[in-house]
């Protein structure tokens, strides 16, 4: 059978709020019984002029605190945390910001015997983005950063764009610059 071709991507546009982001409980990824270190992760999304993007969507996908993804392709010999699904989605506000409540993920396998540093996978959608862009949140000060195989692919001077920084106890900040001098590293997946 000849291979089919995937449907092209198109922008999410400016008018999705009543559909994709109407359920704001998707910003709270934890339940009282969820295991692990609770964090609040505040995103800010900026365009190339440094202007906040007030009509963006941030989606998160992450492993649980033990490093297990709730997905059949994760064949590690452990059960995922039953109180954690790993998915979050919020729209940005007038300041380009949104805040998720989640747990710091555990380290996950790389696939070649190695181990990745704790990270959260991020999808960004917005008016003006004809397709989603994806990046990763790592955590500043994590001793595992130096051995993360994905970070090693990123030019050293740009790696800092992938680090969340502590704002206060339990709260981390991660700024996404779509363009400009501080442009965030995005990945081709």
């Amino acid at each position, binding site marked *: 059978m000849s291979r089919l071709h995937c449907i092209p991507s*198109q922008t*999410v546009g400016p*008018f999705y709020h009543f559909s994709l982001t109407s359920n704001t409980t998707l910003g709270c990824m934890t339940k009282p019984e969820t295991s692990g270190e609770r964090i609040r992760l505040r995103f800010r999304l900026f*365009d190339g002029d440094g202007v906040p993007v007030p009509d963006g969507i941030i989606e998160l*996908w992450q492993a649980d605190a033990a490093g297990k993804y709730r997905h059949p*392709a994760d064949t590690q010999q452990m059960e995922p945390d039953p109180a954690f*699904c790993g998915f979050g989605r919020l729209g940005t506000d007038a300041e380009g910001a949104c805040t998720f409540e989640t747990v710091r993920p555990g380290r996950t396998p790389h696939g070649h015997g190695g181990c990745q540093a704790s990270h959260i*996978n991020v999808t960004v959608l*917005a008016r003006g983005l004809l397709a989603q862009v994806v990046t990763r949140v790592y955590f500043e000060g994590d001793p595992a950063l130096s051995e993360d195989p994905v970070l090693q692919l990123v030019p050293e001077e740009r790696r800092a764009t992938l680090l969340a920084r502590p704002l206060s106890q339990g709260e981390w900040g991660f700024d996404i610059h779509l*363009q400009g001098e501080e442009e965030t590293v995005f990945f081709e997946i």
Partner: protein
Amino acid sequence: MKIYPLAKPGEQPPLLYPPYASTVRRAPSMPPIPLPHTLSELTGPLYGYNPVGETDNDLTRQHAADPLGERIVVSGRVLDEDGRPIPHTLVEVWQANAAGRYLHVVDQHPAPLDPNFSGAGRTTTDAEGNYRFVTIKPGAYPWRNHPNAWRPAHIHFSLFGPCFITRLVTQMYFPNDPLMPFDPISQSIRDERARQRMVSKFDLDLTMPEWALGYRFDIVLRGRESTPFEEQP
């Protein structure tokens, strides 16, 4: 290693496409860094995070009375590039009403809102990858991208598929829409055949006699390298 091969040039939009003005200050300027597919990309959110309600796939039954406009069925299959169905995956849609107006505070187009139409729907595919919505045909509407700019009638689609890589947000268009050649968003797909994949097909078999016209829209998501018997990574 790319377990899911990349699209060919022209089959996906460039991020920077100046005729669509909003891309100019929002498209990243640095090339994205190629990422080998790890467990982080080969897993992804499955549908269970948000249960689907009974009228979620019938946008004409979400209010007290019938919405205005031309009632339609939009149905199809969600497949991977090898033609294998993608079962039990979430499909979310949103659209303008028959007058071309969104239920959205930012949409100030002077066309009427319809108190009987919200324009948001969701469903999951069945075991064979089939999905089906009942809705009304959305109207075209003006926007301010350039002088006298109009969007062709379209329905937004959002799908997750089996993993983080297969995420797709797109727009479904209607056959023979005279606005499409003037629309920079759809024209950002430079490959004509790829662009036509976003256009639904009128399908008499999907119509409901004396009730609704039918449009077929099959959705192909990124698939793995064609090795059907390969073990999971």
